[in-house]
């Protein structure tokens, strides 16, 4: 008995390690990056330590001025200043210039450093600059999580809305949520009759139909999205057809619109809605329909009162699947969507690859994860009873 348990544990160990290594650890680290704040403490250790004991009144002591001048110069010398400048510039635009100018001036500065620094740049004489440095000394920060909700902190620490022209992320999340829900709804609407028809087909035809549903999986999402790119472009077949039918006078700009994104997403995600529905429907016993008929229910009543409620678990599963994939879909919206109409994923990718701002990317990911989790929990709550009976049926 003990031996079997030990063997069983050994057998699942690779999978466990894989899940741990490829899912739990990376996701955990990513989420941690949303609150981690180490750039300042890493580049300016002495300054950070001195600022930690500063009471925030007036200006910090001369030692802090001396330390910041020396450490900035050293950071520039050792090419470590990039991360720091990036981090502080995100706190307040313009701080990058201040830090780089001070670092370059490093050797020429003489004591008393307080006067020398203020002479170099008046911002060193402002309490806010030092407060921001102090707050950025880590080890954690709420900056990214706040900014991802269009919130920020004033230098003295109160949470406020960001300036109107910088507002972005709340709309972005609402847009992502709305597009994903719309795609989910359309997928369910289109998938239900398909799944129903396949489930009622006889032996060889049902597998043929199911294979047809699965054929799109033989090509990558990128290929399918590119196909839409070709179809929807100004001189593409869709525009040609609309012109040919006389529905349009001039080619319409379809690419880059939200309609194009929704169409492409629905196409890519449709099989994920069909398959769970189909699997629930094929397991539904046709005797239920016969029983309902024998009890006097006509076709519509049989569908509404027996088939539909019994197939709801499949609808819920398909909907959850499509929604999760739609929320996380990057390729299709990035390729087909408009520059000003992008999804959260596009910004995450952008923050990671262009801005190298892992904190923001992680914060956006965290909220995306929370949003998906909330929608799934809501679905569970709403269809809880149906899911249970369906599993037993």
């Amino acid at each position, binding site marked *: 008995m003990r031996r079997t348990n030990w063997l069983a544990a050994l057998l699942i160990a690779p999978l466990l390690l894989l899940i741990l290594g490829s899912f739990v650890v990376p996701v955990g680290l990513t989420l941690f990056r949303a609150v981690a704040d180490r750039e300042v403490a890493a580049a300016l250790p002495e300054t950070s330590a001195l600022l930690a004991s500063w009471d925030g009144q007036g200006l910090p002591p001369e030692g802090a001025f001396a330390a910041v001048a020396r450490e900035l110069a050293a950071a520039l010398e050792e090419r470590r200043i990039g991360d720091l400048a990036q981090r502080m510039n995100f706190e307040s635009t313009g701080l990058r210039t201040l830090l780089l100018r001070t670092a370059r001036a490093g050797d020429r500065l003489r004591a008393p450093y307080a006067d020398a620094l203020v002479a170099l740049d008046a911002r060193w004489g402002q309490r806010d600059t030092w407060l921001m440095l102090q707050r950025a000394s880590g080890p954690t920060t709420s900056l990214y999580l706040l900014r991802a909700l269009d919130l920020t902190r004033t230098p003295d620490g109160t949470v406020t809305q960001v300036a109107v022209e910088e507002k972005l992320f709340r709309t972005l999340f609402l847009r992502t949520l709305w597009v994903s829900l719309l795609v989910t709804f359309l997928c369910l609407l289109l998938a239900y009759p398909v799944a129903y028809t396949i489930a009622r087909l006889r032996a060889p035809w049902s597998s043929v139909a199911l294979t047809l549903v699965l054929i799109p999986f033989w090509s990558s999402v990128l290929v399918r999205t590119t196909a839409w790119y070709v179809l929807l472009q100004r001189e593409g077949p869709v525009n040609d057809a609309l012109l040919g039918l006389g529905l349009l006078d001039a080619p319409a700009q379809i690419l880059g619109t939200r309609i194009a994104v929704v169409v492409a997403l629905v196409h890519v995600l449709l099989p994920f809605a069909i398959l769970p529905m189909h699997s629930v429907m094929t397991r539904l*016993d046709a*005797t*239920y329909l*016969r*029983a*309902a*008929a*024998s*009890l*006097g*229910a*006509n076709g519509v*009543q*049989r569908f509404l*009162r*027996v088939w539909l*409620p*019994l197939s709801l678990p499949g609808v819920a599963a398909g909907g959850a699947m499509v929604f999760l994939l739609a929320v996380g879909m990057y390729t299709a919206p990035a390729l087909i969507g408009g520059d000003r109409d992008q999804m959260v994923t596009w910004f995450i990718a952008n923050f990671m690859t262009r801005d190298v701002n892992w904190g923001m990317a992680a914060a956006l990911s965290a909220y995306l994860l929370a949003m998906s989790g909330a929608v799934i929990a809501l679905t569970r709550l709403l269809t809880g*009873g*149906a899911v249970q*009976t*369906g599993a*037993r*049926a």
Partner: protein
Amino acid sequence: MTDALVRFRGVSKSYDGRTPVVTDLDLDVSRGEFLTLLGPSGSGKTTTLMMLAGFEDPSAGSIELDGVRIDTVPPHRRGIGVVFQNYALFPHMTVAENLAFPLSIRRLKREEIATRTRRALEMVRLPGFGDRRPQQLSGGQQQRVALARALIFAPKLVLLDEPLGALDKQLREELQAEIRRIHAQLGVTMVYVTHDQAEALTLSDRIAVFNEGRIQQLGTAEAVYERPANPFVAGFIGESNRLAARVLDATLLRLEDGSTLEAMPHAFAPGTAVLVSIRPERVLLGPGTQGLANATTARVEEVVYLGDHSRLRLAHAGRTDFVVKLPRQEAVPQPGSLVDLAIPVAAVAVFPA
């Protein structure tokens, strides 16, 4: 028959147009009767029931219910209650909601539905079970609910498709009694499909024995058991010893081993090859049998003790598989010993070979 509720006339069914499942079926079901369609699987009994319920269309012929042709009427407008083998209770509804389903389809008033649901649960002895889900009930309880659901809208006819097939023996007997009680109480016509001959004998007013798409015999339980119309019925209902024989004269037959067997007067011409069927429990055993008709002696090959009776395998008529049932008694013959036996003339059924 003037009081027939259901009339099958020339009904045939084939799924592929070539292999017949039911062939040229004529069958009347009397009002208030309990009729069982009995037969092995693939004999056409379930197809016959499904055509009556409306789930299968006959390939030819007509079906009438109460003098009205129904074989083109969709199942939901036939008003026939059906009980399925796997119960088919809706899992997303409570027991009460299942029972209320046919009533709410018929737009009955809420109070009326509540009253009839309560009464139906009392009828199948499950009062207070209305709020449970079908999955929370045992198989026997589920089938009681299914029975109540098929009866609650007061149909003229209730069809039962092997309703007890999934239950164990004790529950099956309990529910058989329940079904008989309800049939007697409501006077509703029931058509029951089973492959279990004991169940058919227990329940039925009449039994229609099916084989290969045709009714082999239609009659009371006693008639099909005691006076089987052909070797199939004799073999399917109860047990029988089958012996090949040749006719000598109006009552005498010659068996394969050369011995003669006396039967009731029959119409076969001398020299005809026939099949003889003898029920094991009708063979007489013991010293007192000498001097009776067809008296002889046989060696006991095997004895199986079965409590209320013993089953003896004898070497007789050139074979070693002649089975005799011996009611419980003190002295059971030992294997290898010789026993006296006699076969009453009335117990010898003669069929064409």
